[in-house]
C-alpha cells in the first residue's frame, strides 16, 4: 500500500475516533476548548508515531523471533505506558515550555486506547517499519482532526440553548455520533478514486 493511501486511510476512512471509536475519553474530555484540543491532538500524534516505531521494532525484532507473538497485547501496554512516562520526563527536562503546553494531556495518553489501537493495527496489517510510522502519524492527524472539529462544535454549543439534561457529555456524544455518520461518507471508493 502506498504511503499516500495509508495517510488518507487513517485520517479519513478509518479515523480512529469516528470510524473505530477508539480514544473516546480524550475526545470527549479534552475538547471543551480549541486550545486544549489542539494540544491533546499534537501530543497524541507525537506519542502515536513514536509508539508505532517502538512497537514495530519490539514485535518484529524480539517477540517474533522468540515465538512470543501472543504476548503482544500485554507487552505493548507496558511499552506504551513506559514510553509516555519517558517522553514526559524528557519533555519536562528539555522543553519546559512544551511541557507546560501539553500539561496534563501527556500522562492522559498513557492509557489512551487509540495509541494501543494503532500499534496493534500496524502489526495486523503487516506494515513495514516506515509504513507503521506513517500510519502512526496519520492516525494521530486523524485524531487531531476529529478533536479539533469537536472542540469547534462544543465552543459553538456553549452559546446554544441545550436542554439541561443533555448539557455537557451527553450532547457531546450525540454530536460525535453525528460527526461519525458524516465521516461514513469516506470509504474505500475515496481511495480508489484518488489512487486508482
Amino acid at each position, binding site marked *: 500500500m502506498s504511503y499516500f493511501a495509508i495517510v488518507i486511510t487513517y485520517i479519513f476512512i478509518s479515523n480512529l475516533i469516528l470510524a473505530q471509536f477508539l480514544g473516546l475519553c480524550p475526545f470527549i474530555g479534552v475538547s471543551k476548548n480549541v486550545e486544549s484540543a489542539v494540544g491533546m491532538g499534537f501530543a497524541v500524534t507525537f506519542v502515536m508515531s513514536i509508539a508505532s516505531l517502538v512497537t514495530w521494532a519490539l514485535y518484529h525484532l524480539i517477540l517474533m523471533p*522468540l515465538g*512470543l507473538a*501472543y*504476548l503482544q497485547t*500485554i*507487552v505493548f501496554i*507496558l*511499552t506504551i505506558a*513506559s514510553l509516555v*512516562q*519517558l517522553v514526559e*520526563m*524528557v519533555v*519536562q*527536562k528539555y522543553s*519546559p515550555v512544551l511541557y507546560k503546553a501539553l500539561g*496534563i494531556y501527556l500522562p492522559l495518553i498513557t492509557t489512551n486506547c487509540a495509541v494501543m489501537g494503532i500499534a496493534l493495527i500496524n502489526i495486523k496489517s503487516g506494515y513495514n517499519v516506515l509504513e507503521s510510522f506513517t500510519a502512526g502519524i496519520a492516525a494521530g492527524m486523524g485524531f487531531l482532526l476529529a478533536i479539533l472539529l469537536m472542540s469547534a462544535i462544543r465552543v459553538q454549543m456553549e452559546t446554544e440553548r441545550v*436542554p*439541561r*439534561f443533555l*448539557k455537557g457529555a451527553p450532547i457531546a456524544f450525540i454530536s460525535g455520533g453525528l460527526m461519525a455518520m458524516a465521516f461514513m461518507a469516506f470509504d474505500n471508493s475515496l481511495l480508489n478514486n484518488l489512487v486508482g
Partner: protein
Amino acid sequence: MDVILRIFWGFLSTVLFGGLLGLGLAVASRKLKVEKDETVEALDGVLPGLNCGACGYAGCGGYAEALAAGKDEDLTKCKPGGAVALAGIGKILGVEVDTNAVRMVAYVHCLGKEGVASRSYNYEGLEDCNAATVLFSGDKDCKYGCLGLGSCMNVCPTNAIRKTGDGLVVVNPDLCISCGKCVDICPTGVMRMIPEDADFVVACNSRDKGKLTKSNCKVGCIACKICEKKFPEAGYKIQDNLSILGYDNRGPGRAEAVEKCPAKCIIPYREVKIEEASSAG
C-alpha cells in the same frame, strides 16, 4: 507439558520485560529530575487532594501552583479543606488568615415527601431531575420542591447525599465538603448552602402564593408572615412568598417561631440531622 512451559516462559519474559522498563524509568527519572518548587509541594501537602474542582482549578495541584506563583490571592478557595487547609496555606505563605469562618453545607429545603406534596403525573423515565424537569418542570405540582431523583447524588464527590426512600434526598452535613456542585446541578434550586451550625431551617422553597402552595404541599411555606411579624429580631424574612431565615444575627424568638408556624415548615436543623442519621440504618 508444552503448554505449561509456554505459559511459564511467557510469564517470565513479561515479568522481566516489565521489570526492565520499570528500572529504565527509575533511572530516567533520576537522571531527568527537575527540581520542583518547594512551596508548591508544601501547599499540595496541606490541600485535601480531593481534586473536586471547587476552587475553580482542575485539581488541588493547579490551585497550589497558582497560590505559590502569587497568581491567586484568595486563600479561602479550598472549601473542602476548611479551616485546616486554610491555616496550612496561611502558614506556608506567611499570611494571616481568619480560620473562624463557619463551614457551609448544602441543605435540601423541602419536606414534600411522598404523600405530602401532590403529584401532577407519574414520572417514569431517566432517574435524573434535569430530565424530569423537561416534562412540565417535574412531576410535582410544586415547581420548587425536591424531585428526589438524585441528580445531586451523581455529582457529589463525597457521596454525602442519599435518597430517603420517600421521594426526597438528604445531605449528610458531616460528609459535605461545601463544593456546591449539587446546588449548581439542581434544577429547582431547592438546595442552598447553610452554615454547618445552623439552628433552624425553613424547609421550603415554594415561591408560589400561599393558597397555591397549600394545595400543592402540606408543609409548604404559605408566606403568612407570622414568623417575620411576631419575631422581628429572629431573622425571618419573607421574600417572594417564602420565608428565608438569616444566620448572621440570631436574635430571640427563633425557636418560638417554630411553634407558631402554621405550616410547620420551620424545623430545628440538628434534630433533623440526628433523625436522618438514625434512619440511615
